[in-house]
């Protein structure tokens, strides 16, 4: 049995920030991550972040994990280790590699388990060549492997648009980006980059079908009406060998749900999300959440949420209350700033839906 004051599950932006914040407040932290290398999705983010300096603007995502691991405290890192069980008596089970199975007993836990990609139901959706955008980023940006020769991108949110741009940089033509919604969800500064490169971004369009003998050889796209139904006769076939799905993410909550944390369906935040208070504590007193697991947003917000959850957990574990409260207040102001304006409207609406219930959680 491994014991620790604070267990952080997940070494992406949220988990790293949580570990850093708690360790900096003098709390002993065990950070467990499934990957071989810390950073979560940051290890694929070859582009520079933007926003403000406080949120690492101008730094490439791949360089952020090292910044987040700079601290004066005590963090023990267990990589290549998956937490697979979470029980009411504060015991968690984990497995390192394939063979070492053991228990962890912490005093509190921050779950920063991230999100999983949503999938779409269409004929041919399991043909080789149908990828999630995360897989395309892993292949190209981590391993230097091209996913195919030409691509249909499904989804014009930030991920769809950024991965389209990265495909173009790798020399792979993107034949079109289709987006079912009437508007482009991504920051327009990125969308206009790929539009200038000649990639059509077709809003109110969807993929109808992928076909091919042993792998994707073509895809059919079509226009949608205002009720999201395909307009008959608008179908057209395009020759591609890759269909890349970037149609949203959902929080990964399996461990939280095992132990009985209350959740609610909030589509603005990616689907089923844990109820939590303004300091990211769930309906269970010793469990906090941060990052996409707390509601799908983006890496900058995940880092601030991580810091907030780490500091809030630290305060509960006996760290200096005044110091911890200062960190929490800074983080809350920082989150408000990130979620300001039209870009944050959806997130604000989602969080408003959660807050009503958190009081009763």
């Amino acid at each position, binding site marked *: *049995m491994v014991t620790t004051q604070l267990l952080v599950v997940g070494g992406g932006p949220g988990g790293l920030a949580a570990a850093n914040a708690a360790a900096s407040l003098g709390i002993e932290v065990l950070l467990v991550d499934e990957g071989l290398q810390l950073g979560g999705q940051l290890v694929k983010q070859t582009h520079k972040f933007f926003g403000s300096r406080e949120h690492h603007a101008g730094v490439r995502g791949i360089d952020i994990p090292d910044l987040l691991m700079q601290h004066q405290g005590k963090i023990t890192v267990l990589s290549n280790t*998956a*937490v*697979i*069980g*979470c*029980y009411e008596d504060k015991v968690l*089970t984990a*497995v390192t590699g*394939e*063979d*070492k*199975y*053991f*228990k962890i007993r912490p005093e509190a836990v921050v779950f920063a388990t991230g999100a*999983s*990609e*949503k*999938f*779409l*139901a*269409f*004929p*041919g*959706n*399991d043909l080789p060549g149908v990828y999630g955008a995360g897989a395309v980023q892993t292949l190209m940006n981590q391993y230097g492997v091209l996913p195919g020769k030409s691509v249909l991108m499904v989804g014009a949110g930030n991920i769809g648009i950024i991965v389209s741009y990265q495909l173009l940089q790798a020399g792979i033509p993107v034949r079109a980006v289709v987006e079912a919604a009437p508007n482009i969800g991504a920051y327009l500064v990125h969308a206009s980059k790929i539009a200038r490169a000649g990639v059509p971004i077709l809003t109110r369009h969807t993929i*109808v*079908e992928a076909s091919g003998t042993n792998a994707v050889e073509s895809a059919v796209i079509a226009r949608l009406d205002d009720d999201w139904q395909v307009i008959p006769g608008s179908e057209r076939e395009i020759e591609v060998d890759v269909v890349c799905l970037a149609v949203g993410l*959902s929080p*990964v*909550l*399996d*461990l939280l*749900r*095992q132990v009985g944390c209350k*959740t609610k*369906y909030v*589509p603005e935040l990616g*689907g*089923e999300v844990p109820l939590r208070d303004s300091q990211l504590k769930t309906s269970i007193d010793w469990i906090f959440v941060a990052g996409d697991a707390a509601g799908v947003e983006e890496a900058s917000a995940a880092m601030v949420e991580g810091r907030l959850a780490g500091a809030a957990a630290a305060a509960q574990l006996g760290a200096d209350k005044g110091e911890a409260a200062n960190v929490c207040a800074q983080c809350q102001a920082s989150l408000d700033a990130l979620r300001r304006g039209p870009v944050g409207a959806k997130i604000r609406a989602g969080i408003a839906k959660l807050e009503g219930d958190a009081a009763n959680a």
Partner: protein
Amino acid sequence: MQDKDVIICRCEDLSREDVRKLIAAGYTTVEEIKRISRCGMGPCQGRTCLQLLAREIAAMTGKEIADIEPGKTRPPAKGVKLGALARGREEHE
């Protein structure tokens, strides 16, 4: 468009046709369909398919997605070798 070519659960190879037949036969919750078909019980543990399944149930029963219960989640969250579990037990005795 053929429902048998639309895969809902990749791990257990269940098509939209398979799932719709189950719903039509009266299995109208995620939990029931999981138990009778193994939908969501493969290596991905439902991360890919359970939302698609919920959408199919909602479409066929006329319910809102928000009202579809997501089904139970139990340890382990991913596959573990029996040998690893057995050795883990020895260590704690």
